[in-house]
């Protein structure tokens, strides 16, 4: 379904834009209909797994791996919400739209199943239709092919920072003028081999839930969004990768050497780590969707956009693995009084 978390028109960033503006969101998360539900801090309502055929129609889904079709569901909604995809197809040149995807578990079921089939039945037991799915970037290229997105197409399998990394690279590709619009997609699957692997890696506790879903957002350069009259939902702010979450967070919150007023501290922190923060709300979106690994940063982005859509909401800090990123309001007056300085310290 299309998630319209805000309809405000872009009128200039409230703080220095480090990256692009987000102009569309698409969710394919079981039991979750809006980004705000990601902030509940509790499991989503019980719901059946996402049914891609029900959302996209059956055509074109045959032989596709689950990660690709979940990603397609979220991508379609994000492109529509951003006004890049209409009834007659793309509304801008496909050459200027790229795909940056992030996953950890995407390829695992295909690879394990094919490898086991080889062992038991030799090569004759394999389906030739699985060939594209043995290459993890099938997720990004499937989206590119379905919607005719002919710009840069790439996939990060970079561990728990992948989602925020993908958002950062979207901003970098825009700044380098390789693209005008970037579809960022985070996807994870709860297929048997994938959840076994997450458990074996210590990323999923026994009895824990793994995400089986996807989130997509469209990021554009601010002038592009303005020219198109696209809804501006938030701005990608400062990003840092460091040795660990604490140092990345400190780097993002550090006093800026940039000109202008100092950045406003976050009102909300999204993290899956135990943190202490004075006067700042802390949420783990994983409580709602399950363990999200490489998709976490993109899920956090969707949650942040919902928060930012609420009146005078202040910036959001997302922390995912050893990466941290600020997400800023896209428009509207800044609050005179922020929520105070967030004091962060890891709790052992």
């Amino acid at each position, binding site marked *: 379904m299309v998630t319209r978390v805000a309809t405000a028109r872009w009128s200039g960033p409230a703080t220095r834009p480090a990256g692009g503006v987000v102009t569309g969101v698409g969710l394919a998360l079981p039991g979750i209909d809006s980004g705000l539900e990601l902030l509940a801090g509790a499991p989503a309502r019980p719901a059946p797994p996402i049914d891609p055929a029900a959302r996209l129609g059956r055509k074109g889904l045959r032989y596709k791996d689950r990660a690709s079709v979940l990603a397609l569901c979220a991508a379609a909604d994000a492109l529509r919400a951003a006004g890049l995809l209409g009834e007659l197809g793309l509304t801008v040149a496909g050459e200027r739209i790229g795909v940056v995807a992030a996953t950890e578990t995407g390829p695992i079921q295909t*690879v394990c199943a094919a490898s086991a089939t080889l062992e038991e039945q030799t090569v004759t037991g394999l*389906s030739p239709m699985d060939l594209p799915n*043995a290459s993890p*970037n099938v997720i990004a290229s499937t989206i*590119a*092919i379905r*919607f005719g997105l002919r710009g840069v197409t*790439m996939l990060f*399998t970079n561990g728990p920072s992948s989602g925020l990394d993908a958002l950062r690279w979207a901003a970098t590709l825009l*700044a380098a003028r390789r693209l005008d619009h970037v579809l960022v997609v985070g996807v994870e699957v709860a297929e048997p081999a994938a959840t076994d692997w997450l458990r074996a890696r210590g990323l999923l506790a026994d009895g824990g839930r793994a995400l089986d879903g996807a989130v997509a957002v469209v990021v554009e350069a601010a002038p592009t969004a303005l020219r198109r009259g696209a809804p501006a939902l938030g701005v990608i702010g400062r990003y840092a990768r460091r040795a660990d979450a604490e140092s990345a967070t400190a780097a993002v919150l550090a006093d800026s050497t940039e000109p202008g007023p100092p950045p406003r501290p976050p009102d909300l922190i999204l993290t899956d780590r135990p943190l202490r923060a004075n006067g700042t709300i802390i949420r783990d979106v994983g409580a709602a969707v399950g363990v999200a690994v490489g998709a976490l940063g993109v899920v956090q982005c969707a949650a942040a956009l919902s928060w930012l859509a609420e009146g005078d909401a202040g910036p959001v800090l997302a922390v995912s693995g050893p990466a941290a990123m600020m997400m800023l309001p896209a428009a509207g007056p800044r609050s005179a009084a922020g929520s105070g300085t967030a004091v962060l310290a890891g709790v052992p």
Partner: protein
Amino acid sequence: MITIEGTGALASVGRDRDAVFDALLAGRTGRARLRGFPARAFRAQHAYEVDDRGGTGLDRPGRASAWLVAAVRAALRDAGLEPGDAGSESAAADLPVIVGTGLGELRGVELWHAGQAPAQELDFGAALRREFGTTVSYTVTNACSASLYALAMAEDLLMLGEHDTVVVAGVDSITTSMYGLLDRVQLEPPEALVPFGRGRKGVLMGEGAAAVVLRRRDTPGPGGQPAPAPTRPLARPRSVARLRSVALSCDARHPTAPDAKGIELTMRDAQARAGLTPSDIDVVYAHGTGTPLNDEAEGRALASVFRPAPPGPTITAIKSMTGHTSGGSGLLSLVMALESLRRGEVPPVGGLAEVIDEVAGLRFAGGPGGGETRLGPPVAIDAGGRPVRRAQIDAFGFGGVNAVAVVEYPVPEPAGSGRPLPAGVG
């Protein structure tokens, strides 16, 4: 201007850059019977594997990580940046490393699933952290153009002024799933990989790694910030080449088949970004996978771009000797292309007795009709009267992900005021 200050590589044919290039020049192949996989499971029986398992039929996870670390270490040393010993404080710890790969450490997932190894990371961040103290690394999993995609990302970081030095690498080890599925779809199992050869049967996978150290040495591109002040020693002059451009695109047409038009547009984009034309290119390292579809599509694109500019570049395709090293192959080609520019010699395309019609009239190193492996006279001369040569490197992947890079050696001497030469000055 972005310079390439250090390079490193290894593959089935050699354990370091010079050994690989010497083997390629000599036409030696890394092709051998399958070493680590149960041969009974496949029709195809050959691959171009790195022989480091310690015995036939044995396998272990983490091989790709080990090659990656070796290639990065060699590139850092070549650039004059001493990486230090594993675990010690390394001068390279704060350099971002962007790794392009087709399959990452998915072979480790297969071994874990078969109960033969514990579950380990899919990405290369942990290996780089252990070895060099690297805090910022990106694993870009992008099929067979991955390492040139990584190169473009580094180019962008440097041109935007976010870093002064970036390490780019490419690496792949073979998974049974990819080897098996390729085996499943090819009509007849190939015994060898013969790029652009008439009667070629298809692709065989190979293994290896390559790395380069990139650096920003002058003013920024559009939208970018000035280069940060250098904080590290500059490389020895021998190593310095220039990265002229990297073009990226996606065909958005077919899950596995390439598109000649998309490939041609990417080649033209790479040349245009460099401010060059087809006649400015001395040598092409083609993607050349030996599959009917790739070689037809790439061959048509090469012909369309270079036939109107005779005599055209010398073309080679090293997968005839290294096998298809997947996501790492683009950067492996690039490192070898730089050796060609330095030494004036181009490895022959192995086994190329007769070329396909699509590439008729193009000049293949070691190809039919006495294909020269010595480079001809350079097409450009710099302000100091030195010859300057350029190479184009192709890499294309499943999903139609295309990447083409252009490099130049030596770095042209500036004319007059310390500014780089206008592109194409001869």
